């Protein structure tokens, strides 16, 4: 599989760097150094009463920084399980899941929580907004959880995000006063407020009509391009699959197909942090 080969190449290049202290080749190493997510031989088994369900059977792939990836498949194929593993909210039965080079299984709760807060953003099918908080407060809340000081700068950032998602007139509204599309826009803004490296979206358009779903998708793509945030979307929506630059198809807990790593974004971007990330991704 192509992704696996890339990792092997990256590891070889890293070895070369370590041993010879030489300059490394550009394209391949950019790709490897920018990798954010790596799944290697991941198995996940659930116990459903007396039945053991094999949700994932030896899944391996990697996702690079800035990719806009759809994980597609029918219901029960294992796409949400993959998302949960990447999102550090579930543990694999075997295999390794590295996010930003870190395996959350070895983290304590506090460390894992901080990691999720600062590295990952979540968009859920059912929006999962906090009903007692206004639009502004819902978006601000992850910053509060992350104990980030809410000063003028952060407030400006929140209002800028609200403007980006087109909800400037609704800042004080509670979620129950918003339409489904508006709620999902709040969820998008909330997912992005801590400047995460990765945003995970679990069937983000499933509860929305076609046009609203398309709006949300366009919004996520716009933010992906503008902010460089990596988006991983689990979906069975053909609209999302068509518009994603990379599609990993899952069936019965296995990777059925992968359109391959998405270099489009990376080739257009100047990385400031290549050196530090290289070490992480090759670990």
């Amino acid at each position, binding site marked *: 599989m192509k992704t696996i080969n890339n990792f092997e190449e990256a590891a070889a290049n890293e070895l070369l760097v370590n041993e010879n202290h030489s300059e490394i080749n550009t394209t391949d190493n950019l790709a490897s150094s920018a990798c954010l997510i790596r799944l290697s031989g991941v198995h996940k088994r659930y116990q459903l009463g007396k039945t053991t369900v094999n949700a994932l059977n030896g899944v391996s792939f990697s996702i690079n920084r800035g990719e806009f990836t759809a994980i597609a498949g029918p219901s029960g194929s294992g796409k949400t399980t993959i998302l949960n593993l990447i999102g550090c*909210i579930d543990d694999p039965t075997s295999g390794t899941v590295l996010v930003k080079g870190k395996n959350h299984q070895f983290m304590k709760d506090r460390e894992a929580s901080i990691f999720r807060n600062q590295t990952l953003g979540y968009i859920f099918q*059912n929006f999962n907004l906090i009903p007692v908080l206004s639009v502004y407060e819902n978006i601000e809340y992850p910053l509060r959880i992350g104990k980030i000081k809410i000063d003028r700068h952060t407030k400006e950032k929140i209002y800028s995000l609200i403007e980006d998602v087109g909800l400037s007139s609704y800042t004080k509204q509670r979620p129950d006063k918003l339409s489904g599309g508006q709620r999902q826009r709040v969820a998008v803004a909330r997912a992005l407020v801590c400047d995460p490296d990765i945003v995970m979206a679990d069937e983000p358009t499933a509860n929305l009509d076609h046009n609203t779903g398309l709006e949300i998708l366009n919004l996520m793509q716009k933010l992906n391009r503008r902010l460089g945030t990596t988006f991983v979307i689990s979906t069975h929506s053909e609209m999302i699959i068509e518009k994603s630059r990379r599609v990993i198809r899952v069936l019965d807990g296995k990777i059925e197909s992968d359109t391959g790593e998405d270099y489009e974004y990376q080739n257009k971007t100047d990385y400031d942090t290549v050196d530090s990330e290289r070490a992480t991704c090759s670990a």
Partner: protein
Amino acid sequence: MDHITISLRNLLRNYKRTMLTLSVLVLGIVGMLVYAGYIDFSMWGYREETISGGLGHLRVYHSGYNTRGGESYLDYLMENEKDVYRELIRNKGIREITSELEINGLVSNGNTSEMTMSRGYDTDSVSVIRNSFTLKEGSFVTNGGTYQIALGVLLAEKLDARVGSYLTYMTTTRHGALNAIDLEVVGILETGLKEYDERLSVMSIETAKLLLDVEAADKFIVMLENTDDVPAIAKEFKKKTAALDIEVKTWDELAQFYNQVKAMNESYFLITQMIILVIVAFSIINTMRMVIYERMREIGTLRAIGMTKTGMVTMFMTEGLWLGIFAVIFGIAAAHLVAWIINVSGGIYISPPPGQSNGYHAMIRPDMIRYFQAAAIVIGSTIVGSLVPAIRAAGLKIDESLRYI
């Protein structure tokens, strides 16, 4: 948006359930405080009755009277009573000082003799005597009332004595000689306690001294303006009279029965508190469990976006704490209102206690210490009650919480 605000909003989210839970807690507090107010009123009444009923706030004896006195108490009379009185009267906050001499003997109408326990009072200080008994007939033994006696109502019945009757009082003097004096019955008294009414008689201290052939009282009974001043005045007086070879006892050191009744009531109250504590804790556990099931997905979301387990526990415990705080505020206000209504309407009639002939109207006596106790118990139990569900919420698997429907 901190924990305090978000948890407050969460409480208002399902206000019907919050109100229901609050009602349980408020009822618990009202029950606890009204019961405490009743006990406190009863004990306060009993305390004042005990003090004014002859015990006094302070009693001053010759050293050794209480430990070695007993049957030979006449060997421990206050020979220096004038010096002691002079020291006593100098203290502020003293309402009345009276000297007393106990005397036991036989009282006879010529046909029947009955044993009597008598108290010889300084009749200049009459309030102690007047508050000790109810005058059924006649008058109290007054100043200069040597050769007069007032009898307990049942003792008078046994002796077929009325006001104006003459009885012979017989006793042994300090030196063992038999002594007898004829006394005029000037009053019939009632204490409400059958045993007392059958045995009690009162005379002037001069009469008692004559009968016993002694020159001194066996104690001073000191009444203060305010019962709360007892510890301070007792301490001060002990310091001042260290050289006078006397011992000072406060009312609570002597009122054994009062202390036993108080301890018993406190035990009942403790049991009530424990029951209410359990009710409060279970109400909170039940409410919080419902809250957790309702907000399962929210819990998963908060954990996913970075809330720590500790943060989750804090959030739910803050909700429990809010419930406790509201319950305390409304509970104390409601208890105060109920107490006011009961007091204004004249109290609750309580049947005569065992051994007493009269019932009484119980009032509710509010007490800040009880309020603090109730607040501590309810807030403590809401914290404990919300801790268990909060830990459970924090321990939920994030992916399972998010899947929960």
